[in-house]
């Protein structure tokens, strides 16, 4: 399994994503600069967290016009796994690969803490190693993570079982609609989530609950390609 971690100017969780893939799976991961135009050599694409282009104008608004984003869209259309974490989620919504938008947190403050997520859907390539309804601990760190979509879109997400993670009731850290923390596209191959699974891969980091997200990806890939 070859993973590309996209590096925009201002990405800062890029190395963390590389380390997480390498330490939790038998696959490889490498940084790919944002000017790259072809991602066909990779099986999995991670759009990492950080502050691409300083989050100036809107989080993700400038990055979404980087040359690499056409390649990301192409591979997503071909069914490859594309995962946006935090700023990556913002980039994917700006690029139209996922519905909705991320607003400023309701508290108006940046918030970094261990969040509790409910796994809503285990029938995705990203969550097959979790149990439905399981509560997992994954950190958040964002100022604009307040997911918004209009009622019709949210109903659509519910109906198609595209909501993958929700914050535990009464523990929503940013005011997102429906306590949404992470969603997939209709094909379930593109995931966007505000919490950082790559920061929860070892007990020393306070939680290892993110490991199974990466092993889910790896198992999905292995089932499709055999061991290689």
């Amino acid at each position, binding site marked *: 399994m070859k993973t590309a971690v996209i590096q925009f100017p201002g990405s800062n969780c890029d190395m963390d994503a590389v380390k997480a893939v390498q330490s939790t799976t038998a696959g490889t991961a490498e940084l790919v600069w944002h000017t790259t135009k072809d991602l066909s050599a990779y099986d999995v694409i991670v759009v990492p967290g950080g502050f691409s282009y300083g989050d100036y104008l809107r989080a993700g608004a400038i990055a979404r016009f980087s040359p690499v984003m056409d390649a990301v869209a192409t591979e997503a259309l071909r069914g490859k796994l594309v995962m946006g974490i935090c700023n990556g989620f913002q980039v994917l919504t700006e690029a139209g690969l996922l519905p909705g*938008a991320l607003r400023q947190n309701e*508290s108006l403050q940046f918030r970094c803490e261990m969040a509790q997520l409910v796994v809503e859907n285990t029938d995705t390539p990203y969550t097959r190693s979790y149990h439905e309804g399981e509560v997992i601990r994954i950190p958040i760190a964002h100022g604009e993570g307040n997911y918004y979509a209009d009622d019709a879109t949210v109903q659509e997400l519910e109906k198609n079982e595209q909501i993958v993670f929700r914050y535990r009731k009464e523990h929503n850290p940013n005011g997102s609609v429906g306590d949404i923390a992470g969603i997939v596209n209709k094909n379930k191959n593109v995931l966007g989530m505000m919490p950082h699974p790559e920061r929860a891969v070892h007990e020393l980091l306070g939680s290892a609950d993110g490991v199974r997200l990466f092993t889910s990806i790896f198992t999905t890939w292995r089932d499709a390609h055999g061991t290689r």
Partner: protein
Amino acid sequence: MTWQALIYVTLKGSVLDPQGTAVTKALHAMQYTNVHDVRVGKYLEVVFDADNEQAANEQVQAMCAKFLTNPVIETYTYRLAEVAS
């Protein structure tokens, strides 16, 4: 011809504006109890060339739709004026 567009971006009316709510509360605390509502937004000044006013308008609208705003949550108004180049 050189044009200047003064573009005002705000959250759509249907989208909660927590910053605006906070500013409203603060104004109330400062005894400006006559304040009903505040919407906080962004203001951009874009200076650019276009052949005529219609072309200029089209350009501004395209820039706003594609990049300067996120239509999922934001809306905009603008004023356009010709400026000396």
